[in-house]
């Protein structure tokens, strides 16, 4: 599968990335080569094979006691910083 400059633009939009016009051609070429390489997997018949998303062999599936305990982190940050300036997140349509 060849990746076009249009594909790069589309995927960049999905990934919230900015891609300069000058970069598009090279990225499309590099990604095409990589995608063509990974298509090697099509040689394999994987019908009936379960996917493995994680190899976890010994996990404690337990919830811990619901007890209040001191934690570092946000409370710490709040002590040293008076205010957090956040960008405007509500925009007019």
């Amino acid at each position, binding site marked *: 599968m060849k990746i076009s400059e249009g594909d790069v633009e589309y995927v960049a939009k999905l990934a919230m990335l900015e891609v300069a016009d000058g970069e598009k051609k090279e990225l499309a070429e590099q990604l095409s080569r990589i995608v063509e390489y990974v298509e090697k997997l099509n040689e394999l018949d994987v019908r009936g094979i379960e996917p493995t998303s994680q190899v976890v*062999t010994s996990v404690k599936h337990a919830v811990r006691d619901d007890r209040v305990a001191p934690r570092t982190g946000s409370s710490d940050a709040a002590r040293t910083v008076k205010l957090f300036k956040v960008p405007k997140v509500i925009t007019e349509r």
Partner: protein
Amino acid sequence: MNLRNITADKLVALYQNRDLTASEVITSVYDDIERTDKEVHAFLSNCRERALEEARRMDTRIAAGEPLEPLAGVPVAIKDNMTIRDMTTTCGSRILENYVPPYTATAVERLRGAGAIVVGKTNCDEFAMGSSTENSGFFVTRNPHNLDRVPGGSSGGSAASVASGTSLIALGSDTGGSIRTPAAFCGVVGIKPTYGRVSRYGLVAFASSLDQIGPIAKSVRECAQALEVISGFDHFDSTSADTAVPEFVKNLDQPIKGIRIGIPKEYFVAGLDAEVRTKIEAGMRIYEDLGCELHEISLPHTEYAIATYYLIATAEASSNLARYDGVRYGLREAADSSLQEMYRRTRHHGFGQEVKRRILLGTYALSAGYYDAYYLKALKVRTLILRDFQKAFEQVDIILAPTSPTVAFKIGEKTGDPLSMYLSDIFTITQPLAGIPAISVPCGKNSENLPIGLQLMANHFQEGLLLGVAHHFEKAGGFVV
């Protein structure tokens, strides 16, 4: 005093005998960093004042005759993708240039609990994405054995620091070879533990189903000691394993006679450098002399590993790195029109080329219409790769292979061609996909005096056996510090 000629266990013994103070050692570490790191560039930041203060406190305890922890006063370096409270954690990325985390990674906390003194944070490929440490957003780390060569990656700063004697033990992280390749290229030992053995709390996520923290040091014994300290269940990481941690150090000398070692034929193919092959074959003979049985085995899906890995790892990365949007973590680029524009601007300025490439590839593999053809397919092939190992470990106890098909390559040699860089990971990709532990140990040098690494793999949670087998090898082969 140079750390290149001493190991952690011997250093602690010197403290115990009052032959040396921790303050002397830490002072000389910073002298060495000042002298050698101008060329090697292993460190992104250091914490001299704090380390010297910890050394002074350690010396008071030594003088008082207090019992010492196993890593008391041992200078350690930490890859800069692990958080340390109040110390900048950049992950080698400009997007985290000013990020100071409010908490410390469990692995680092445990090292400190065992007496270790952190001397600094080491350089790495941005977000651990790379095989050479050339993708750092700050500077390139050089191989201490030859400054024109890469140290391997992505934990290149950690391996280079140990090899140049500016730390005794360094923590790295391994997603597709990032501990083992730099260990091999820099002539030191590095172990990637079983997935879940070491808590990932505080390790900045690259590919969460593959990432694992592990130690790098000059000897197997030091790696065993560090691993013993950092391993074990942590309720801050829901994937950390609730499995007992054996006494790795105590069991290092267990006899290995009769151990069955598998030689996977798929790892001895075209592309394997002739000199590397010769040294690995010499390594096999050492094991035969030690009374081990060598068996040829097959891991038939090895040739699909790189394709599988670069789909899964980039898909997970594209999701993990979505959090760097300019709202938290420091860097925020100004944008006039919208929040989305601010996100895009920030990510554009903060991420390097390789990170962007991988986010694009991962987003593509997960996008509507391609999910089944790429991502889901890769997850199924991952099952086949795991089964290869399960079958192999029914026949053998250990698998032996090269760590890398070549010695350290030249700086700049592969940066123009991302695919050729990916292909260099061929021997270190399958183990994280299968979640099994693997170690790289030095097995000699080539004609240009560049180190070669021999890789050993074991079944899940068999680090004890793995370390023992590696320890016998370094002793028998004369690869001891």
